[in-house]
């Protein structure tokens, strides 16, 4: 009568600290340039080595430019941070997929596509969207830099066991509704703090029928409702995806692994601390209107009016709409926008580019809009070319950029100017997230494609 979460957690307990957290063994540690330098520095100060260097993989992603990656990074501070990662990886003997490496890309994209992410694992990274990897039926969560140092030093982490929650999505998603819309819908219902303290398992028909890439999008956004992570029980879709990838087990090892992976599901009588159910048919393409991912609505709906907001939240609500330049009760459909961003660890995978390209095929880009199409990795970029999607995009007036986190958090040059509106497939619409003063409307790849064609917030089902 265990949940999927319990089974994986219990299998990784090294010891329970008296009156304290659990010491959990970590199977896979991902690293990028922003949250690791102080951790490596800490090891150096303590005179420590990396305990299990083969279990850490680094890829610079947050700071890297999406043009001219062949040349030295122009911003000296970004360049120094990326170079520091290279220096640390070399000195401590951990794997580095640096700039120019064919495996480079957003760490949450390259882990799965190379077979480093597998069912039953514990996975951490100094990045909140580590929850992405839960799509494979693993316990994956973001950690702070002190914890990065702990994992480097001991391959372990101290964690209080979170509560468990199951979110069931019954029925099938409608035409024109993507995994991103489903996730934004759930967050709008849960609010940004609604799942704090919980680890979420997603279940139900709509989840089961999703591809791995769609599952990653859903799990990726778990953190946006405060959850420590999200996970989906592995099944044939998962096994099919992992099989044959470079670091996936082979031969006898594969058979052994597969037999174990098939046991990874919540027992029929497993009890969750909380359980909620939504109906897939209620979900339409989503957009956000405010400055946190919980402030989302169906694209045909109106922004909630002030009388629906409780007193303690009114200051934040008014501040948020002021920042966005929106009025309570307003409709967003048809509103002109300035930028479109397709990419990030939420929507920068090959399927997102397929969805976008299929939609824009035979149509033309709106002149008024600047569009950044940023693959999540070099492997995605290569697939885009192999599948001829780049030709479709070029014919519609779009240009592909080079992979990286890019305008998701604008640590590189890709910043949305102050006051401008961006329809973004990324994960956060916080104030200034895409550049100081930038106004972000979160959406899925289909809504992004429709906006890129019309220059307005557009319901893709109506085009």
């Amino acid at each position, binding site marked *: 009568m265990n949940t999927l979460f319990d089974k994986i957690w219990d299998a990784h307990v090294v010891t329970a600290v008296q009156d*304290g957290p659990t010491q959990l063994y970590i199977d896979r540690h991902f690293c990028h340039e922003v949250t690791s330098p*102080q951790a490596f520095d800490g090891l150096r100060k303590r005179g420590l080595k990396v305990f299990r260097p083969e279990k850490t993989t680094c890829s610079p992603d947050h*700071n890297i430019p999406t043009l001219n990656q062949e040349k030295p990074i122009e911003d000296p501070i970004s360049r120094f941070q990326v170079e520091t990662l290279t220096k640390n990886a070399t000195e401590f003997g951990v794997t580095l997929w640096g700039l120019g490496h064919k495996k480079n890309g957003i760490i949450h994209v390259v882990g799965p596509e190379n077979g480093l992410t597998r069912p039953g694992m514990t996975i951490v990274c*100094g*990045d909140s969207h580590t929850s992405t990897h839960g799509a494979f039926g693993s316990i994956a969560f*973001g950690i702070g830099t*002190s914890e990065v140092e702990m994992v480097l030093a*001991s391959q372990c982490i101290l964690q209080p066991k979170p509560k468990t929650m199951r979110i069931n999505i019954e029925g099938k998603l409608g035409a024109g509704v993507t995994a991103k819309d489903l996730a934004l819908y759930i967050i709008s219902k849960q609010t940004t*703090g609604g799942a704090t303290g919980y680890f979420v398992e997603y279940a139900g028909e709509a989840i089961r029928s999703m591809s791995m890439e769609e599952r990653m999008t859903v799990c990726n956004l778990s953190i946006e409702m405060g959850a420590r992570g999200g996970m989906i029980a592995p099944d044939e879709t998962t096994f099919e995806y992992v099989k044959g990838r470079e670091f996936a087990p082979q031969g006898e090892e594969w058979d052994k692994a597969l037999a174990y992976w098939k046991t990874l599901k919540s027992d029929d009588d497993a009890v969750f601390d909380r359980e909620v159910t939504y109906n897939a048919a209620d979900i339409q393409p989503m957009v956000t209107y405010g400055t946190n991912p919980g402030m989302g609505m169906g694209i045909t709906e109106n922004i909630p009016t002030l009388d629906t907001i409780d007193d303690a939240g009114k200051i934040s609500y008014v501040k948020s709409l002021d920042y966005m330049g929106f009025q309570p009760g307003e409709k967003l459909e048809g509103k002109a926008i300035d930028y479109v961003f397709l990419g990030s660890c939420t929507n920068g995978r090959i399927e997102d580019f397929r969805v976008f390209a299929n939609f824009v095929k035979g149509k033309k880009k709106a002149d008024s809009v600047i569009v950044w199409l940023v693959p999540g990795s070099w492997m995605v970029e290569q697939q885009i070319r192999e599948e001829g999607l780049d030709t479709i995009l070029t014919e519609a007036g779009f240009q592909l950029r080079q992979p990286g986190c890019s305008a998701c958090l604008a*640590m590189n040059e890709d910043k949305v100017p102050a006051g401008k509106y961006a329809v973004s497939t990324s994960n956060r619409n916080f104030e200034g997230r895409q550049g100081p003063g930038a106004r972000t409307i979160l959406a899925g790849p289909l809504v992004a494609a429709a906006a890129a064609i019309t220059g307005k917030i557009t319901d893709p089902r109506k085009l």
Partner: protein
Amino acid sequence: MEKFTTLTSTCVPLPIENVDTDQIIPARFLKATTREGFGDNLFADWRYDKSGAPIKEFILNNPTFSGEILVAGKNFGSGSSREHAAWAIAGYGFKVVVSSFFADIFKGNALNNGVLPVVVSEGFLAEMFAAINADAAATVTVNLEEQTITNNANGKTESFDINPYKKGCMLNGFDDIDYLLSNKTLIEAWEQK
């Protein structure tokens, strides 16, 4: 890490809900490779205008309010796992953050950097805001040993939760890595399983 036992201080009020980590420390300030200097950019986009001049209305620029306790609205620290947010708060000089609700990762990061996150009830929080607004010299006392917080303006006390292990770390100024390394044999035994 510095030891923390008790603290009596005036407070800086920030009655905004869902203050996310991108507001605490915007992404463009994450390029440093050390833990120092983040306090200067705490709440940078709320604190300074485009030319870098302080925005008068923002609470950190209001000389009336000061102290080592930051009092914030519900769901403080949501968003990113960036520990830089905790470094910025500690770097600015806050030792305690009080709210009715914290995001998970932020809470852990704060504790790992000697900043105590204190969860109070919404009523207690509202009374704290009222007391500070009525008199900026109003003080609050946080006693970690007793796990209590007292609003000295009205004498009301609430107790707060903290994991006993983390409490011990804070009281003694210990950190987790020493502990983990002391369990090396157990780690190797797990790997052999």
